[in-house]
């Protein structure tokens, strides 16, 4: 397996507080890795540093062997890292299609004209928003906005997809659809890093999990094993989920 992402001794300080404490892990091409941990354990901060939204205070992030730590977010995006956000961020003044076109037009391929439109429609189809390209973003329901965010992430042809609680707030039926969607991406060879609390989804999708607590990595390995580790159970899952 080829390694796609390598994180080495990654650290983040906010003022006096160390939010992420020397985290290291790797992701291979085609892998789907779950990043778990209690609220405030630093998962989203790690995601933010990978996508370039936050500068790291120390350590290294390598994408395909290239050091991307310290790079501006848009340059990381062009190198094939796409993401969704914990609280949905759609572009409210634009149509559904324009939301996706934005990513296609500035992604690695820099499409324009008919190509960008085609790409956007294809991505919308893929997440189940086909035929709704002319609606205004603000009209969409919460779950459709989540879909739209995924479509936008896909439109930049990512090599690494970062999903931040993308499945949160879905009921079991919706969850099943969502899991199906990510499985499809997996099948097509997409590499995914999943921050998620929904354990059903983690079990169904992730071959491997990294668990954080209070900014440190407390477990890393095959999902089933990790979820039964006593420290993970104590800090994160609670007895009822063990």
């Amino acid at each position, binding site marked *: 397996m080829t390694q796609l992402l390598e994180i080495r001794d990654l650290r983040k300080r906010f003022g006096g507080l160390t939010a992420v404490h020397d985290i290291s892990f790797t992701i291979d091409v085609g892998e789907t890795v779950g990043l778990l941990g209690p609220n405030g354990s630093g998962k989203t901060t790690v995601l933010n540093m990978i*996508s*370039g*939204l936050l500068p790291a205070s120390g350590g290294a992030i390598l994408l395909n062997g290239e050091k991307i730590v310290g790079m*501006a*977010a*848009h*340059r990381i*995006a*062009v190198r094939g890292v*796409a*993401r969704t*956000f914990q*609280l*949905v*961020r*759609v*572009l*409210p*003044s*634009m*149509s559904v299609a*324009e939301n996706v*076109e*934005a*990513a296609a*037009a*500035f*992604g*690695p391929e*820099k499409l*324009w004209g008919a190509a960008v439109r085609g790409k956007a429609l294809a991505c919308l189809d893929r997440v189940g928003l086909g035929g709704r390209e002319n609606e*205004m973003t*603000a*009209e969409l329901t*919460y779950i459709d*906005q989540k879909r739209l965010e995924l479509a*936008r992430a896909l439109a*930049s042809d990512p090599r690494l997809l970062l999903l931040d609680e993308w499945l949160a707030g879905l009921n079991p039926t919706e969850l099943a659809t969502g899991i199906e969607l990510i499985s499809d991406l997996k099948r097509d060879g997409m590499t995914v890093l999943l921050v998620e609390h929904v354990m059903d989804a983690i079990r169904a999708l992730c071959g491997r999990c990294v668990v954080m607590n209070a900014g440190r990595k407390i477990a890393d390995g095959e999902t089933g094993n990790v979820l039964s580790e006593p420290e993970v159970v104590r800090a994160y899952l609670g007895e009822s989920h063990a």
Partner: protein
Amino acid sequence: MNGRLALVFAVALVALAALAFAPFYLGRYQIGLLIGLTGYVTLASAWALFSGPTRYVSLATVAFFGIGAYTVAALNEVLPYPLVLAAAAAIGLAVALVVGLSTLRLAGVYFVIFTFGLAELVRQLVTWYEVNVTGTLGRYIFMSFGPEQIYWQLLALMTITLLISWWIGRNRLGLALKVIGDDEVVATHCGIDIARTKLALFALSAVIITLVGAIQAPRWTYVEPGIVFNPTLSFLTLIMALLGGANRLWGPALGAVPLFLLFEWLSARFPDHYSIILGLLFILIVFVLPGGVAAFAERTFGQRKPDPQTYGAESALSRDTADARR
């Protein structure tokens, strides 16, 4: 180029030709009016070029306008006129780049006040320089050409500005600006270089504004900082663009033309109650035409893009999330 676009261009071309030949048929006062009109349409359009899509409300308009005018005043006896204009544009560009680079972190009202402060700072520095280095404050501009030439130059600049605005709207750059205006974080994750995009547009807008100041300056014969750095100009430009609709090609013009004429008419008919009537009209416009004249025109004359205002109810749904985000 499709048929409709061709038609629009044809009409615009005819209108442009009519405007270009207007001085031959009009009196001096009407030419003066046209100078004011084209000047403000250009200012408002140039302002909206940057501030419309990005929603960065700039009050630095008069800083650049004044730089243009002052450059002409300082150099008009030293350099040939085209070079004076080029020098003005270059100085405007340099200042815009410095300012643009330093303000990239600011947003919202902080940017507004920063740009206002900038205009005042430039004015104070120019004053201080003149007082302490050249020992004189006022400068004279004696040019050999009349108002028609000023008008034609402004008309050309206006046309170029509108063409640039149109081109950007159909271009990747326009999309980038809209995304930035909606959400900078999303923009950067889409691969948009926000800093460069914003800087480029700010500089472009500033250079056009500088040129308006440079072209108009010979109208006044005498230039001093208090005259050319009059902050009212920044406010008027902003109000015109916002009133018309800063997100549309014709929006700023639709705000600038009626407002300019309204000012002119009011100050002539009601010189003593001008302020009161103007103020009341202003308030009325805010209440009756939310979203600007262009949005109103679109609602009235044809369905185009739904206006975000009409979706207030839905956006109330997502407001919690939106606020949590802030």
